[in-house]
């Protein structure tokens, strides 16, 4: 297994993800500086949360033009698995590796809290260790997490089962009242058509340890390790 975490200037969840991976699998991921263009092959490349380039202009917009992103686009076409969490998700939509975009939360404020997610497709690299429709408790922490896409894209996402995680209530109802940020169809995480690129706003790395108040994120990482190995 070879895993890399990209560090943009302003990334701040890079260490957290490395920590979670190390804790769960014993494997220590590499860090890739955003200016790098040539690097070895990796099975998985993670774009972490944070505020790449200060999120000036628009979240993830400058990040998507970072030197490393050209190479990441190429690798994704070759099948390398790519995950974008929070700011990483924003970079992936800005780079057009995933459809749609992430707008400012409906309440116009930063929201940091634990929410419930429903696993809508467990037949992916990233979710196979969860049960279908399993309800998991995961934190979010973002200002711009309102997923938005056109009706056409939404239909495609639904038809192709590209929606992986949806915000829900503690008993699994997917209603507006359990939508923390106003996302279209309560969308919290999606994959690309090919199935090797995932973007999600919630932070599985923050709930992969009992001491931090939850372990629902562990199966997320385990799914990926199992897919790779």
């Amino acid at each position, binding site marked *: 297994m070879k895993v890399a975490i990209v560090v943009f200037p302003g990334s701040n969840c890079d260490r957290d993800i490395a920590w979670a991976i190390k804790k769960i699998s014993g494997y220590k991921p590499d860090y890739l500086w955003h200016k790098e263009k040539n690097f070895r092959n990796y099975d998985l490349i993670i774009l972490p949360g944070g505020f790449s380039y200060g*999120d000036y202009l628009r979240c993830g917009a400058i990040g998507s033009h970072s030197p490393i992103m050209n190479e990441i686009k190429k690798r994704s076409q070759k099948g390398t698995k790519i995950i974008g969490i929070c700011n990483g998700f924003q970079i992936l939509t800005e780079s057009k590796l995933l459809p749609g975009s992430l707008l400012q939360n409906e309440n116009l404020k930063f929201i940091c809290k634990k929410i419930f997610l429903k696993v809508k497709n467990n037949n992916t690299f990233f979710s196979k260790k969860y049960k279908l429709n399993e309800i998991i408790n995961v934190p979010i922490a973002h200002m711009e997490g309102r997923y938005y896409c056109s009706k056409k894209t939404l239909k495609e996402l639904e038809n192709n089962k590209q929606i992986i995680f949806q915000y829900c209530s503690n008993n699994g109802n997917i209603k507006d009242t359990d939508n923390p940020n106003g996302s279209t169809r309560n969308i919290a995480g999606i994959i690309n058509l090919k199935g090797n690129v995932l973007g999600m706003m919630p932070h599985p790395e923050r709930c992969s340890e009992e001491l931090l108040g939850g372990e629902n994120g562990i199966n997320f990482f385990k799914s990926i390790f199992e897919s790779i190995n």
Partner: protein
Amino acid sequence: MDKLNNLKELLNIHNLNNIEYKKITKILKREPNLLELGIYSVMWSEHCSYKSSKKWLRQLPTKSKIVICGPGENAGIIDIGGNDSIVFKIESHNHPSYLEPFQGAATGVGGILRDIFTMGARPIAILDSLRFGDIKQKKQKYLLSGVVSGISNYGNCMGIPTVGGECYFNEDYNKNILVNAMAVGVAKKNKLFFSKATGINNPVIYVGAKTGKDGIHGATMASAEFDDNSKQKKPTVQVGDPFTEKLVMEACLELMQTNMIVAIQDMGAAGLTCSSFEMAAKGNCGIELNINKIPLREKDMTPYEIMLSESQERMLIILKKGSEKKAKKIFDKWDLDMSVIGKITNSKKMIIKKDNNIIANIPIALTEKKTPEYKRPWIKPKKVKNIKKIIFPKKNKVKEIIFELLKSPNLTSKKWIWEQYDHMVMCDTIKPPSYGAAVVRIHGTKKSIALTTDCNTNYCKHDPFIGTVHAVSEARRNIIATGATPLAITNNLNFGNPEDKKIMGQFVMSVKGMIDSCKKYSLPVISGNVSLYNETNKSGISPTPVIGMVGLIKNTNSFYKKNLLKENDKIFLVGKKSNNISCSNFLEEIILKNEKNLGSPPPLNYNEEIKNGNFILNLFKDNLIKCCNDISSGGLIISLFKMLIDKGFGAEIDKNFINNVMSDQIFYKILFGEDVGKYIIVANNEEKVKKIAEKSKINLFKIGITKKNHLNINNEIIKLSELKKKFENNFFNYINN
């Protein structure tokens, strides 16, 4: 050098008096020029020189076995065993936050974070102690929203969790809000950095954001002498850029892994002036700066503006000679400006050059020695009058009273605030904001630290001495209630105008209270900040000595795991039943309402505090506590409710604890009195807890048992869901209406 015109007006603008001006001419043996006058004015400002407070602060206990560095540096440092140390400090940004709440609060956070990483520590937590006026006023809602967004914006972007603090509302703060930010970092003991400049000819380097015209001191000045071009004055409040600060922090921490740094200091209040002067003063050497080398954000800045600018995200570093190129590589990687702007000399003077001409020449040691220090006259605050006889409600009003109390913005849930802060980033937040102290793990170790800020405004207003003793004691109880051993404190002394005898009296008595309590608890004061002149139209704020405290948990896993609450778990009170209602929220919100005098704060017994605290820590050690809270604002019932609600539990109170036979007075005092020195615990093993209490002669009362769906107090039943809804929504309603 230019001669000064209109001396009187100039001194006025620079907030210097005639005596201070004479001192300057004596030190320089001539008249200062405008740049020098500007430099003296900021260095001798209350904010930088502590001229009114120094005499008293000196008496604080600042030493103990664990103190590595006390007050005087950018932040204090304590030893937590092994090669780990904790660096922390609190600082105010009150005045700017009132003028421009978002930027004022944001740069407050930015400033205190720089103080922490300057010492070689990676910041791991932020806390904020906030005071606003009447929350029903539009202006206060605007200030609150702005301040919270500012803190959220800066802390979140830096990737440092904001894990705690407090927020209190009272009309005494209508015209002067308080924004105190505390930051905590962790450093290796053998990799600490200080600001003492040494080594003749070592280069002085400037790193970080460019210098602009923001935050120039007292820039209200409108006279032509200060701005020959009469350009539009920029706002006096600095503008923060957390992204740049994140880069500066990472670059500095990277540079600190090498052996290139001799000394380092951030450019905070009074910018380049104070930082360079202080570094040289500490090293008893001289410093020479070339103004032409300073990276500027805009053209045509005068040396005066450059030296006094308070632009954010800038650092001053003394490097070992010859390592400039290697250091530059690191800053290049992070896309940051680095410029060699001068050198260390043996002249013992601060010399500033422009185009090779000397434009300022100030003897450092002499200036240090002659820094003004005032013995401001003060008078002891008057004792408050006793409150009139209180008529207590009938005993069947408990439910009504709880709902009424939870309407108070001071008692209701502050989720609206802390959900805007990223309190989980760094994956070490063990106890997030909710009630009491926060607990943050030291990354990659078994150790955790508990963190809190505290100050009960009502207590301090009614008696600054005992109020401050209470602030220290309550902070200590918060720390102990998490299972942590209290280690040291930082303080933020917020007061009105010290030239007013009464206010100086509040300040003096408050410091005396801190000295007394810190000595009794063996708690050193390792850093702090004084904010005076929190006053508008001759009306000052209530004395607000905010205490920040840090405690240590040696083995986190041992009691933060597998202690899940169950129904019918036993709840105990540690300490005597309350027998005092004065200065309580019950009195303020339910009985007296608009009455200003709430009586004297409850008395405090140090022995009892220490005894009960030790008892709690022993129970934690033996894993006999499932959860714990101290009794504070709102009294026993509110403290109990806050401890249990997030865990999904209510409680049933025993008939032996309170009952209908009791008088109304005793009944309500037990439930809502804010007598101090007490804790509530849910015990892991009832018998063992009782035994230890008996052996250590601790007052232990069974309060009742935990219940899944309700709170039952003297047969009044409150549905948990209903209570929780009110508790969590009240604050949102204040903001939205």
